[in-house]
């Protein structure tokens, strides 16, 4: 969470569901461990890194970082998994908060974290917030500062596909979507595309107002140290 690498993983190995919890720390990122074998797993890449299942990898999927209002706009029937654990309830007192707000409260690494770090990449500050996107051959990092300096959006080409990187003012998160548009701009809080599509309250619409799916590269709204240690040769937007 310090690094904020929220991501989805399919918890099966050879078709068998494994049960996971956080049991370690490496590169300042929590390691998961499965109950059955005790293998430790990288939670950003899904790779088994230590133990009997080393060499396996869990399948990854994006989770959508959003808000209650946006989730209900997308699907009014959205179901909630609500934890009654006292410490979880305590974290969400007051109705919960925004992800950006949560991140901005964290200014540095806890005491035990630095000893687990590999050689850090100094192209960005350790705790810099940004979004990392990647595929099978490449990774790229966009700092929140760079996106804000560009009017909260960047239209980029990543591995041959056009991708829009933007700060969603209603979800308070950085996000990336593939697009065919060659231009995008803000119209208040509505993000409009040259194709006629638009994103409003986190929902993407075609020019006729119908909803369309949002194709997204794998992405994490994250801290620089975590992303750069996981993808050491990542490109950094605006640098080289």
């Amino acid at each position: 969470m310090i690094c904020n690498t929220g991501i989805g993983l399919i918890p099966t190995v050879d078709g068998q569901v494994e049960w996971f919890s956080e049991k370690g720390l490496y590169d300042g990122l929590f390691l998961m461990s499965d109950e059955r074998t005790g293998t430790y797993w990288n939670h950003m890449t899904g790779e088994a890194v230590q133990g009997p299942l080393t060499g396996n990898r869990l399948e990854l999927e994006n989770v959508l970082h959003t808000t209650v209002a946006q989730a209900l706009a997308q699907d009014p029937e959205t179901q909630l998994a609500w934890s009654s654990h006292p410490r979880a309830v305590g974290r969400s007192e007051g109705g919960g908060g925004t992800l950006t707000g949560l991140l901005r409260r964290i200014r540095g690494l806890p005491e035990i974290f630095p000893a687990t770090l590999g050689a850090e990449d100094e192209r960005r500050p350790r705790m810099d917030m940004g979004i990392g996107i990647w595929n099978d051959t490449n990774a790229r990092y966009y700092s929140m500062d760079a996106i804000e300096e560009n009017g909260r959006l960047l239209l980029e080409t990543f591995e041959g596909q056009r991708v829009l990187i933007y700060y969603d003012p209603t979800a308070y998160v950085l996000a990336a979507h593939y697009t065919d548009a060659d231009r995008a701009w803000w119209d208040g809080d509505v993000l409009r595309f040259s194709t006629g599509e638009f994103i409003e309250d986190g929902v993407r619409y075609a020019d006729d107002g119908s909803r369309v799916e949002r194709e997204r590269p794998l992405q994490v709204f994250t801290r620089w140290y975590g992303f750069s240690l996981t993808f050491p040769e990542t490109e950094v937007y605006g640098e080289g």
Partner: protein
Amino acid sequence: MRRSALALPSALTALVAFSSSGPAEAQETMSQIEDFDPGRAILNEKPWFDPFRPESLEPLNDALGDGRLTEEAALMVLERNGQHLALSTLQMSYHHVAQGDLAGEPWMVSF
């Protein structure tokens, strides 16, 4: 890339859409970790945090209605077979791992 990119699996190219993402779209992945250094890893026997394994779900609207969540509250949402499941991001800042099944398919979120 030293660790991940050269060996990153085809699954990482999967395009994941809010309304259609799921295991059927994720692809098999496999690679070897070549440079994991256990000397600087902390490997515990017991979990630091209790993982979240929800036994039941409820309409998101209910939590909005009774004030547990505000409209601006951060969520992480996943999808299986057209059904959407939301987790409170702030609750996940304690649990770090949540896991269960939705529409008969397993899911897990780490944070």
